[in-house]
């Protein structure tokens, strides 16, 4: 809401500097977004009247003028094509500093000039503000102004304050409402205007028109006045300038007056050309199926029965609270008007304006729910202004169809409760003072208060507390820290602690944490080669996305990880290692909300990146989470991954079976190509819930060994397709308890072993916790191992 300062001053004495005022208003709840000083940088510019004008002896285009600037007569040379003797124009005097520079005495083709006539642009103004300015040339006043008047005064160049008005305070979408807030904030009285209407036309309004409300729940009140002998023309400068400063375009005196009253009092108004109203009747009703109305913006609007319209005996003449119809528009020929001042249901207006795609100054006020008691005052103010401007003669009386239901409008002032909620000790007198200033009627005997009709937001003690707090100043509330309350133990859940373990381990393994968007494009499934019927393609779809690229909630994070890797790769970054811990979303049949699953995704390429590096990181993670019962199994079915370089992580269930918790491996070369990742790109993805379920916080101490270890190596040749995991399992089983540790230290394929075979070498550590092992015991275990490997895998000692 843009409020010109001088307009506010009509209703309240703002007796502090603008900075202080703006700060005070912000701190009492009317946040100031900005202040525009329209006259900024315009100094020593006054109104002048051209008395004489004669041709320049040395230049065809220049004229020499004698200009009356009030205090003196100046000779000014001008090149403006549009001025003539008698015109009133803005004159920048010598010494004036304009946005374009300083004015000095100058000689133009030998003739001295003592000032400059100004155009709209030179005054730093726009056509929105001065619609009557010429396209080219000096601005000419179309209204009588005394020469010598400061142009800032003549053009009403004001300071315009832009307030952010919250949705609960439609009463502040008005100059008067803001003046009221200002008065309470500054502790000065509100100047309530006395509105006087002379009503000089003959007859009664009710003789001219009847009003019918068919849907009182959508229109609780409709009040109207009739004005005759209307003379449509431009409104005076002061009104035009105030409207323009507040952001509205001046149109003609009648329309300007209705807009002026809306801005001043917050009550949207409308004026109908009464000669176009058939049957002398206003009917407020819902639109009939198929009805069409051309609104004031020239658009044909298809109406439907959910929309409220203002109709005459035959047809709609306006969309209620949103926009008037062209069929009853004020024109130059209008002689008699009906002024509408009504109250409409906010939700209904909101839905209609949304459906029609019209957001007008009227609708954005109505949709927040306005004060039904304001209609009469606004009508009277309109009538007063019409009389003041000589725009018509007001017919006696108001036709008022009032179906406003009685509402609960009293509330108890519970001082203790308010102080209790705020943690303050504000005395009752101070509270009463604030509420009275806010126009609550307070009965100090019963402590009952009557809520003003314009404050429909006040419902409970909490609302009252806010009123007190914002004028007490929030920052005067003494800080405390839940003192006297039961102490509580702050803690992370087990799941949250495990998530920390995951992040920390990933970082320790050199992976950097990524954050990617949780919505994506349905086309990503093609880029990762998912078959058309793959379950991951079933996603939650956003009905109003920002675009197709952001239109579904992701069901897998791998495409995002690949995109991040590709981005880094395209920027010539040699090595990238990343992880992300975030959610995927799977629709569930028969359930409103999808299943939201936490997923850990790893991705890397570059230096030292290969399958075993990735697997090592995963093993480190499993160890950090205390997961010991797991297996990696070859995974050949996942379309995203290289079928020969991919494993599934299998976690052991209590019953000895295994469940899949994720996949790790090299990205399928085709997918790598489609996603523009390097050829050797590695990724992994795990269900975090499964990992956490299998994890344990328990660690048990094992005594450090007291007896020496016996190290042995063994190398066997087996068929290429034999898995190392199976060999390790067989070694452990055959060796028995005395085998402390076994690890693979070499795999060799090549000329030293037959084709299709490989040599695998293991380092074994034997040890007993109770005694020093004898050579014979270890030899016997080695024999058992070799036999078992021979028997199970046809292994030959190398």
């Amino acid at each position, binding site marked *: 809401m843009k409020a010109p300062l001088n307009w506010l001053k009509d209703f309240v004495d703002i007796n502090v500097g603008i900075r202080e005022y703006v700060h005070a208003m912000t701190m009492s709840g009317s946040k100031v977004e900005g202040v525009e000083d329209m006259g900024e940088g315009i100094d020593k510019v006054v109104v002048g009247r051209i008395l004489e004008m004669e041709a320049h002896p040395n230049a065809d285009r220049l004229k020499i003028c004698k200009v009356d600037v009030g205090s003196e007569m100046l000779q000014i040379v001008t090149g403006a094509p549009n001025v003539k003797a008698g015109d009133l124009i803005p004159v920048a005097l010598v010494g004036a500093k304009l946005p374009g520079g300083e004015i000095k005495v100058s000689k133009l083709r030998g003739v001295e000039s003592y000032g400059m006539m100004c155009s709209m642009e030179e005054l730093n103004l726009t056509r929105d503000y001065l619609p009557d300015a010429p396209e080219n040339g000096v601005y000419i006043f179309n209204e009588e102004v005394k020469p010598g008047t400061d142009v800032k005064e003549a053009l009403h160049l004001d300071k315009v304050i832009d307030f952010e008005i919250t949705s609960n305070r439609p009463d502040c979408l008005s100059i008067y409402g803001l003046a009221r807030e200002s008065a309470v904030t500054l502790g000065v009285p509100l100047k309530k205007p006395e509105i006087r209407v002379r009503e000089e036309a003959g007859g009664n309004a009710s003789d001219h028109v009847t009003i019918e409300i068919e849907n009182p729940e959508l229109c609780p009140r409709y009040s109207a006045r009739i004005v005759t002998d209307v003379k449509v023309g431009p409104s005076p400068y002061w009104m035009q300038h105030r409207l323009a400063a507040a952001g509205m375009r001046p149109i003609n005196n009648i329309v300007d007056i209705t807009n002026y009253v809306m801005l001043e009092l917050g009550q949207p108004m409308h004026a109908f050309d009464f000669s176009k109203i058939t049957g002398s009747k206003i009917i407020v009703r819902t639109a009939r199926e198929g009805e069409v109305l051309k609104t004031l913006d020239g658009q044909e609007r298809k109406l439907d029965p959910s929309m409220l319209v203002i109709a005459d005996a035959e047809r709609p003449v306006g969309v209620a609270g949103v926009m008037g119809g062209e069929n009853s528009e004020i024109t130059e020929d209008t002689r008699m008007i009906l002024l509408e001042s009504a109250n409409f249901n906010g939700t209904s207006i909101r839905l209609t304006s949304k459906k029609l795609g019209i957001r007008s100054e009227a609708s954005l006020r109505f949709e927040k729910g306005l004060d039904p008691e304001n209609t009469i005052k606004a009508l009277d103010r309109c009538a007063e202004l019409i009389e003041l401007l000589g725009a018509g003669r007001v017919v006696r009386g108001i036709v008022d169809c009032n179906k406003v239901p009685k509402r609960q409008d009293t509330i108890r002032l519970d001082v203790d409760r308010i102080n209790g909620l705020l943690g303050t000790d504000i005395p009752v007198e101070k509270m009463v003072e604030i509420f009275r200033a806010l126009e609550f009627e307070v009965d100090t005997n019963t402590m009952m208060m009557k809520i003003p009709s314009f404050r429909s937001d006040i419902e409970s003690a909490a609302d009252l507390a806010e009123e007190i707090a914002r004028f007490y100043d929030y920052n005067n509330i003494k800080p405390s*820290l839940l003192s006297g309350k039961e102490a509580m133990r702050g*803690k992370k*859940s087990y799941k949250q602690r495990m998530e920390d373990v995951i992040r920390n381990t*990933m970082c320790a393994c*050199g992976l950097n944490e990524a954050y990617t968007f949780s919505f994506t494009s349905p086309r990503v499934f093609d880029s990762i080669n998912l078959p058309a019927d793959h379950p991951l393609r079933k996603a939650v779809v956003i009905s109003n996305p920002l675009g197709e690229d952001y239109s579904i*909630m992701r069901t897998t994070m791998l495409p995002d990880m690949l995109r991040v890797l590709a981005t880094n790769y395209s920027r010539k970054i040699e090595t990238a290692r990343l992880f992300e811990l975030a959610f995927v979303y799977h629709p569930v049949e028969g359930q409103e909300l999808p299943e939201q699953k936490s997923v850990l995704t790893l991705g890397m390429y570059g230096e030292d990146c290969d399958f075993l590096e990735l697997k090592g990181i995963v093993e480190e993670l499993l160890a950090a989470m205390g997961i010991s019962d797991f297996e990696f199994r070859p995974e050949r079915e996942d379309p995203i991954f290289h079928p020969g370089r991919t494993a599934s992580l299998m976690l052991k269930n209590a019953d000895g079976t295994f469940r899949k918790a994720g996949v790790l491996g090299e990205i399928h070369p085709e997918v790598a190509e489609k996603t523009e990742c390097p050829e050797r790109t590695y990724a992994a993805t795990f269900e975090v819930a499964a990992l956490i379920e299998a994890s344990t916080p328990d660690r048990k101490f094992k005594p450090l060994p007291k007896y020496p270890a016996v190290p042995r190596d063994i190398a066997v040749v087996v068929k290429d397709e034999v898995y190392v995991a199976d060999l390790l399992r067989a070694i452990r089983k055959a060796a028995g308890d005395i085998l402390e540790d076994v690890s693979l230290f070499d795999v060799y394929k090549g000329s030293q072993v037959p084709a299709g075979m490989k040599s695998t070498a293991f380092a074994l550590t034997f040890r007993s916790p109770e005694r020093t092992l004898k050579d014979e015991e270890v030899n016997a275990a080695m024999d058992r191992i070799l036999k078992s490997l021979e028997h199970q895998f046809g292994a030959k000692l190398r």
Partner: protein
Amino acid sequence: MKQQLESIQKKALEKLETIQELRELEDFRVAYLGKKGELTSILKGMGSLSPEERPVIGQLANEVRNALEAGIAAAKERLIKAAREEKIRQETLDVTMPGRARKLGKKHPITLVLDEIKEIFLGMGYEIAEGPEVELDYFNFEALNMPRNHPARDTQDTFYITEDVLLRTHTSPVQARYMKDHKPPIRIICPGRVYRSDAVDATHSPIFHQVEGLVVDKGVTMGDLVGTLQVFAKGVFGENTRIRLRPHHFNFTEPSAEVDVSCWGCGGTGCRICKGEGWIEILGAGMVHPNVLRAGGIDPDVYSGFAFGLGIDRIAMGKFGIDDMRLLFENDIRFLRQF
């Protein structure tokens, strides 16, 4: 013989001075004190001495032996020390060379800020609650005192899945869910992702992160809110940080406030970061609206509470001086490794 011994001692001790290597020293020892050494062979001739001479010469011989042994020990020490010094000199490194790189991964700046905030509130007895991002309209709006068609909904451009299901526009629905399942006293923070239909640019993202806070107990005051936010602000932005509350309107709190912190760039005197204001708005807060307590099954005549919500992304940007929000989601390694 006495002269012989004395001359051996003199000669030997002079020689010792010139020895530069341990091996040479050993040769020296053998040459004098070994089985066939000079001193040994002289002593072998002791048998030919008279009984009177024998003890005298014997004593002298022992003295010479002791002197040589001591000389050898001293020389040995000298040589070892010299050798060690030489080794040290030779293996001296250019310690200004860069260390061998250890590539520790880094947490995302949003995680870092979240962790800091969590730590502050865990210390004040809060738990961490979570809730779904694809959320029911009921929890996102209605239970928070924003019925359908309420104009306040316009301020949060919402992504809808169906008429009743949406992407949560704030973390506040977790409040509503938590109150349904828990009785006071309640102290929680709820971090998470939220969604608003904003196009991506340097200062906007349709996905960002918030932390919600909720406290419900008997006799909770707005003073408690102010005190809590002060602790939070000092914790995140430094001990000298001040906060300022401005009245505002949210449907789910009453009274409501927008909260500014003194600018982290200038401390409040006004600079480019705070656009000369000295203050930066970072969060919304207020006393839980009675209707919200009621929707959560809590009697507003018995209990009161406060709630607050803050945007993490902007705080992270402010703290680390990140000037473009898109960097947070682009995941350029050179960006991520800076934190």
